[in-house]
């Protein structure tokens, strides 16, 4: 067991974890942050995307011990980083019907926030390329892309968490 201390969604947390525990497992099993989900075992799907020190990462591809001393933001803490009840990207996904079953959605939203932080006014092609690490099986991506573009145009870019 290794002791780790980190900040997750604004809260300081501290736990003893096995070094083999993945960050996503730590979030789900130790912290009950089940908003972040596991969709694959090869890091292709991006469903587990969170922000580590402000940049998007796949939390299945980070060990919990590697997050020691760092700051993690998940879908559950995202709204608190913006004004209002929802982050503008969350709002945009609802407005543009950017989700159906919703399983990929937390990862999609977290990646979209990162993308817009880097490119506040992306083209459709830039959005499509920027979201290439996140798989969705329901939407055909049409409305996900629309959601990200809508968020960009309505907020002049999502605020970086």
């Amino acid at each position, binding site marked *: 067991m*290794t002791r780790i201390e980190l900040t997750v969604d604004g809260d300081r947390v501290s736990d003893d974890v*096995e*070094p*083999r525990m*993945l960050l996503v*497992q730590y979030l789900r099993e130790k912290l009950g942050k089940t908003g972040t989900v*596991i969709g694959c*075992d*090869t*890091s*292709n799907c*991006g469903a587990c*995307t969170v922000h*580590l020190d402000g*940049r*998007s*990462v*796949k939390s*299945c*591809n*980070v*060990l919990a*011990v*590697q997050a*020691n001393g760092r700051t993690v933001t998940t879908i559950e803490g995202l709204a608190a980083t913006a004004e209002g009840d929802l982050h503008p990207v969350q709002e945009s996904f609802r407005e543009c019907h950017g989700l159906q079953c919703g399983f990929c959605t937390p990862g999609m939203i977290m*990646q979209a926030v*990162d*993308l817009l932080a880097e490119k506040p006014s992306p083209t459709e092609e830039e959005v499509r*390329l*920027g979201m*290439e*690490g*996140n*798989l969705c099986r329901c939407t055909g991506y049409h409305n996900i892309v629309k959601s990200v573009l809508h968020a960009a145009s309505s907020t002049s870019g999502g605020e970086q968490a």
Partner: protein
Amino acid sequence: MIPVKFDYLAPSSVEEALAALGEHGDDAKIIAGGQSLLPVLRMRLNAPEVLIDLGGIDSLRGVRDDGDALVIGAMTTHHDVRDDPLVKEHALLLSKAAAEVADAQIRHRGTFGGALAHADPAGDLGAPALALGARFVIAGPGGTRTVEAADFFVDLFETAIGEDEILTEVRVPKHTGWGAHYEKFVRVAHQWPIVAVAATVRGSIDEARIGLTNMGSTPLRATATEAALAGASATEDGVRDAAALAAEGTAPPTDLNGAADYRQHLARVLTGRAVLKAAGA
């Protein structure tokens, strides 16, 4: 989805890391960005007893100007390599190739040195490093040594790095003002390249350097094409004959994404395209 149990060490210096490596030997595995290693551990295809994380060694991160070469720290992320102004100015090909590695999330974690040390023949950075004549600085118990790119890649997932050594930085000769393009051929965007061509050219065309991805067990240099391109004009007709030589000496794999002969065909076509794009044609 759950790795086998291991111990975790987070040294804060290269010396500490080398000491840990010396102590645990075969049982230890270095983790850099972990973006290739962790999937392997999750699938239990590898089961090290000790993981030595280089993430806490700040000196391994960053790009610096060292006269006629750039020095890229092994722990510099793909994202940072892509965006680094020095890289864009002096080794544009690396910036272009780093932009094509996996996806944004992976590029935020994955590292330049880690990817090269992993030596996946389908990895995106080997071919450009080879084309640019990169030199690999490797630290070991007896000090550091430098290995030429041509000697660094040994075989599938095998490099010149010894079991008690660590890749610390990569020295890339400056190619200031050279045009560059990384032409990657995939069926879907999140795929490893079926074939890719890394091309960088001076003038149009005075000199060309070309690396091939996934055309053999290691990254390959298309030397015959390079020679034929010297003095060629940057037009389709001008590069055609040179590009036709690109598959010489290659031994690509056959798999679900293509047979070897198709990959060789692709290498020829993509080389022509990459050279023209690199030349700004």
